[in-house]
């Protein structure tokens, strides 16, 4: 009887003192030292992460510093979230590379685990079907190596079909876009222009699209005031939360960003005769006249 009681108490002690149940994983968020407006972006992402995981250690990495390994040794993290490609590269050289998740950077699954800045096509399609339900076909034109939208199979049949077309280089991409806008696309189609499209070419493309009343969409907010109807860009807080959720997974992999903000050029919308009800209009985080 006593022996049985003793075994029972010992089991309870192990259960209680087990690290899996008694200790939160130690997470370190490494971000670059920055005094510019980018610092605010990092703050938003870190806030999102902490919203998902609770407390996390912050590690400001100075560019060129070789003390990261020692700092990480001192913090002894279970997971490291690296914000930005430079910080990811720095940590990739330490012994903590396998514990690292990357955020706030464009990368592919072969490079890192984490949340890439490429937009999740499913989330994008959901937003588009909400904003412009009349669009049935969306063309995504982008240059190989400069992808900004990650194609994910759509779940809902109500979303518009997404056709991704990639050019091998900038000239090929421009020709692809010019041909698409000039020949193939119609007024019921929307075209995502390459984020790195030169402004002078954008003028020419926008002129053609304007004449054919084709909706131009972009993932580069700087292109919004040059004939583009809508712009889509990452929601930093949501990105942080997505990173926080990913870091708690047992085997975190690669994800594209699901939290997407949207912007609207109302003058183009007016020209294209697209009306938004106030509730929908409120969904746009940026609206220019």
């Amino acid at each position, binding site marked *: 009887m006593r022996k049985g009681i003793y075994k029972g108490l010992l089991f309870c002690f192990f259960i209680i003192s087990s690290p899996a149940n008694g200790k939160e994983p130690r997470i370190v968020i490494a971000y670059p030292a920055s005094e510019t407006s980018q610092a605010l972006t990092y703050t938003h992402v870190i806030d999102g992460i902490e919203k998902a995981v609770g407390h996390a250690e912050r590690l400001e990495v100075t560019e060129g510093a070789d003390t990261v390994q020692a700092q990480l040794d001192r913090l002894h993290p279970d997971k490291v979230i690296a914000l930005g490609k430079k910080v990811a590269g720095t940590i990739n050289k330490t012994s903590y590379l396998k514990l690292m998740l990357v955020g706030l950077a464009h990368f592919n699954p072969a490079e890192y685990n984490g949340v890439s800045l490429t937009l999740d096509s499913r989330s994008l399609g959901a937003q588009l079907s909400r904003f412009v339900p009349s669009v049935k076909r969306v063309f995504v034109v982008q240059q190989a190596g400069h992808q900004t939208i990650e194609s994910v199979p759509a779940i809902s049949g109500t979303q518009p079909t997404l056709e991704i077309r990639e050019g091998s280089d900038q*000239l090929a991409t*421009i*020709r692809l876009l*010019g041909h698409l806008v000039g020949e193939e696309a119609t007024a019921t189609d929307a075209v995502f222009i390459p984020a790195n499209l*030169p402004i002078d070419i954008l003028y020419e*493309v926008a002129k053609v699209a304007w004449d054919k009343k084709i909706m131009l969409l972009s993932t580069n907010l700087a292109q919004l005031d040059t004939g583009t109807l809508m712009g889509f860009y990452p929601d930093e807080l949501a990105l942080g939360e997505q990173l926080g959720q990913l870091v708690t997974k047992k085997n975190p992999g690669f994800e594209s960003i699901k939290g997407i903000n949207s912007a609207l050029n109302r003058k183009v919308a007016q020209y294209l005769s697209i009306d938004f009800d106030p509730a929908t209009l409120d969904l746009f985080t940026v609206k220019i006249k």
Partner: protein
Amino acid sequence: MNLPAHLNLRQRYNLTVFIAIALAYCLLISLLYKVIDNYAGDYTSHYWQDYTKTFSDSVKYSVIMRSTSVSEALTHNFASDKNVLKASVYNSQDELLATSGGNLNCMATQTGFTTSLVIDTHDYWCFYSPITQAANFLGHVELIISKADLKAVFGQLLWASGLIILVFTVFIFFVVRHFSGLFTTTLVEMATVLKDVSQGKRGRRVAFSGAADIDMMRDVFNDMLTRIELNEQALEQRVADRTSELKIALDNSQAGNVYKSQIMAMVSHEMKTPLHAVVAGLQLLYEQVPQGPGHELNREYHAKALNRANELNSYIDNMLLHGKLEADQFEVAPALVAIKPLMQGCADKVAPLQDRNRNRLTLSGQDISVVCDAEVLRHIVNNLLSNACKFTLEGDITLSWWLEQAALVIQVGDTGCGIPDEFRARIFDAFWQVDMSLSRKYGGYGLGLAIVRQFVQQLNGDITVGANGGKGTLFTVKIPNSAGRLAHPP
């Protein structure tokens, strides 16, 4: 620059100012024109370079899309400017994609215009600009721009500038002419008065007036003329006085010459006539004195008396000769003279004197002939040899002669007492001797060398005296050797 001689000072001044102003304006306008031309050319060229760049940017999309129709439309659009003679688009293989037409060709040797290029010809510019997208070279555009408009503008500018130059030059000329009159009138009047004064016109004065300093200049100038006239009058008076004095002196001189001639005639007649009688008497008496012992003393006295009488006759002859030379009444009679016999004769003549002082005489010279007055030449050589024998005791005397260029040179040297340096300049003065005391060693009146120099001058020659080596005297006589009158020995 030579201005016309008939223009007066004021006209010359005005003409000079006019030319200077016109030249200055032309230079200024030329400079400005050149600067503006360069600036406008550069500015216009830069404008069209930018235009070409815009053209290349505009056709870039159509070239990327290989849309010939759009390229053509853009090309014609850019060629619509009246200054554009031709607009063309080429691809990266230099194949023509679009052109506005025209057959102008800039003959650009370059192909594949990866950088902008401007070819500047006389009538037009050719602008080339590459079409690029990032680092990709897509082709190039060509614009040919006419310079006709620019030239027309500059032609008008040149005409306007020329007209402005003309108007301003004329205006400034009249202004300068007006102001120049204020002082050139003064100078012209002064020049006129000075010219009259220089021609001997008296009493001319200037009358200009103006500012205080002009009036002061007038007064000073007139005072100066007055003083000049007064000085001239005083000078003329002094010249008249001196002329009068000279006339009196000339009259006296002429009277003196008359007296001198009378004295010379008197000496010649009144002194030489009795002296000739005395010499003749003494000669007869000397011949009548018997030879033999007991009469030697008598013959010696007669001989001394005869020698003294002859010496006196010689002195009187010298004095008469000197007077004749002084009065320039001696005339030379040139004739062909054999020099060597003449010299030998002279040597023979002084042989007694030479023997008396135990001197050795050496003659050296060629057997030459010259055209000369033989008597004058003989007198010169005799006198120099006599002096050498007279002032040399137991020494060597040399007589040498030769022809040198256009002159006969005669040298008489001795090893006698010599002439101190400080006296050499005076030995040719008449009646002057180194030792002029009554107790002097050597006799004579000091006329010999004076007559020699006068004779040499009569022959247009020259005589100099110097030391004969370390001892004695060396006389050198140079008598001009007229080429036509001198005969060389065969």
